[in-house]
């Protein structure tokens, strides 16, 4: 039963991963195919590249911000909805709804909302705030630490992108946590209450530890979205001034299909694959172990 699908996946997934890996070691950088092997020089060039260094910084900052904020907001919403408030279904749907949109739609909407001259800044100005934020057009980086070619730190512009991504995915985090909360038996809560735990202590000492498997899955899912993100950035900001909102996915697309630099594009793809593997492989290993037990 499994063999046909194994063959197809073998060709269309692993076969092409292998091909991409091979191309990343060649000198194929124009329309003219050039399969001369050049070793790791494509990778070496990438790591010296201003744009790629910026991409690495942006991905790191974006991932940390995106995962942390999404999980905190998701948990908060789940705890709120879980209190069996009236209209629970309504709120649940409202919070999950952004997930039904594609990142392209989200990107376009938030590009308008956070446009420094026409968006939310008009409201801020009406409220009398003179020094309005520049959102995704800001080229500020906090703090500016010279590192390699680039200045390391948190690019202010990436915050705007993270806001859009959090808006879209926090409903999903809520849904996951809600499922987890429903799985915690009432006996546990009762027992903790009998032992004199307050609401805050109950959440911290009982509920959050019980939700650990959910949190782990969430981190994996959100991390792989964040490390591979392309569509949101492409629709919302593009690479940005001085590449403050650029990510490897966008660089890969531009260098491959605009610059015809297939070897460099393949190298970026391989690095992205390795980054995602850092999260996925330990997860797979641990889940396999569980299955054996």
């Amino acid at each position, binding site marked *: 039963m499994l063999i046909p699908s194994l063959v197809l996946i073998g060709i269309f997934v692993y076969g092409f991963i292998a091909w991409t890996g091979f191309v990343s070691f060649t000198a194929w950088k124009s329309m003219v195919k050039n399969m001369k092997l050049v070793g790791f020089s494509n990778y070496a060039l990438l790591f010296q590249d201003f*744009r790629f260094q910026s991409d690495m910084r942006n991905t790191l900052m974006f991932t940390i911000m995106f995962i942390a904020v999404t999980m905190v907001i998701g948990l908060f919403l789940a705890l709120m909805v879980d209190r069996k408030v009236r209209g629970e279904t309504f709120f649940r749907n409202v919070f999950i709804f952004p997930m039904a949109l594609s990142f392209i739609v989200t990107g376009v909407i938030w590009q308008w909302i956070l446009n420094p001259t026409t968006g939310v800044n008009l409201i801020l100005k009406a409220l009398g705030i003179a020094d309005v934020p520049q959102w995704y057009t800001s080229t500020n980086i906090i703090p500016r630490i010279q590192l390699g070619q680039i200045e390391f730190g948190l690019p202010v512009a990436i915050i705007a992108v993270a806001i859009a991504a959090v808006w879209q995915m926090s409903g999903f985090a809520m849904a996951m946590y809600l499922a987890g909360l429903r799985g915690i038996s009432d006996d546990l809560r009762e027992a903790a209450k009998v032992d004199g735990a307050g609401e805050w202590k109950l959440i911290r000492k009982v509920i959050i530890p019980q939700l650990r498997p959910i949190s782990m899955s969430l981190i994996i899912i959100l991390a792989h979205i964040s490390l591979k993100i392309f569509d949101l950035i492409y629709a919302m900001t593009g690479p940005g001034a001085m590449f403050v909102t650029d990510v490897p996915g966008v660089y890969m697309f531009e260098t491959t299909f605009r610059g015809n630099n297939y070897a460099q594009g393949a190298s970026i793809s391989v690095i992205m694959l390795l980054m995602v593997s850092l999260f996925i492989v330990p997860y797979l290993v641990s889940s396999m172990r569980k299955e054996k037990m």
Partner: protein
Amino acid sequence: MKRKFGVIISALTVTSLMLSACGGQAPAQAPSENKTPTAPAATENKPAPAPAAKPAASGGKVEIFSWWTGAGEEAGLQGLIKLFKEKHPDIEVINAAVAGGAGTNAKAVLASRMQGGDPPSAFQVHGGAELNTGWVAAGKVSPLNDLYDQQGWKSKFPKDLLDLVSKDGNIYSVPVNIHRGNVIFYNKKIFDNNGVKAPATFDEFFAAADALKAKGVTPLALGDKEPWAATMLFENILLGKLGPDDYNKLWTGNLAFDDAKVKDALETFKKTLAYVNKDHAARNWQDAAQLVAKGEAAMNVMGDWAKGYFTTDLKLKPNEDFGWVTTPNTGGDFMVITDTFALPKDSKDQASAKEWLKVLGSVEGQDVFNPLKGSIPARIDADVSKYDVYGKATIEDFKKSKLTPSLAHGSAAIEGFATQANQIINIFVTQGNVDQALKSLKQAAEANGIKK
């Protein structure tokens, strides 16, 4: 059991498809092309039509690949298709246009189709390096010398233009239209109200910009969300500082990128950037042109497709609502952006495709397309009366100006360099580090084989 069979069959189909593709044969027709009731299967299996100059095989098919999906350009393409159908009612036309500004998406689709052995009959490509260092160097397009001889076109297009679509004595594509890249569009009311005249030199430009800035008007609108817009502004300054001869030498490696004149151009570029709108990184070119249209900024450096945007989309009147002038010191030069069509070497039905190219290259075809698209014809003998006041003036300029290829639009240098130049300019716009930019430009030129 049933499911198993289904999977095996689909696996077999996929494998056989791949095998046939590897064998260099055309893969099976996609089912989406079942528009014609006449069974295409019979004609498909025929060998390729003889190369004799027959008036096209009857029942043929042309698939036209372009990125003309915007308002005026789509109308122009439809006009061409209509003209073609009148002449060849027996040839089926498939419009395979792919949306996306400046053809980014289209080029990606085209690359995969060409490399996968499923080329369209004819495809849009910018004349210059994009054609010559791309498809010609890869050996994917057919030379069209016989078509040019047969139609007597060699004397109907400017020689400079034919040079842009030729390599080693062979001509590889048919130019359809010409856009000019070195134009400043300005808001006429702002200029009149502030007593500013259209600038011809850099000194006049900066004097005008200072005067406007003092009045609280944003002097120059820029929208470089897509970085090519900044590269375009830079290439026009480069042309103004270097002059056409030295500018053209850059692309053949006869003038190094760390030359003092290039440095001067970068410094002028930096100075110019002090006059642009603050939110330039959030705008695309239309958004920037809109600033001028609405009177929020005075000037915009853009190719003359902006004229089409002003007149068609925003209903502005030339010489009344907006005016134009060449960018500083480039009055006698013409930054040329030309859309051309080339013929893939291994496409089916080359005879029908050549009929399409004949329509594109004819006076009739060019005069149908260009007034709608807002560009000027590539031929020198087109009917001037069909064009608006801007078009008429530009047609005259085109005849006497020196042509220079645009870097931002892929005509000047190989795509690899153009992409890297965009990155360097993008960093420069924020950092303003002249020496770093010069160094990077020189490295990029070397890495992409721009040398003597």
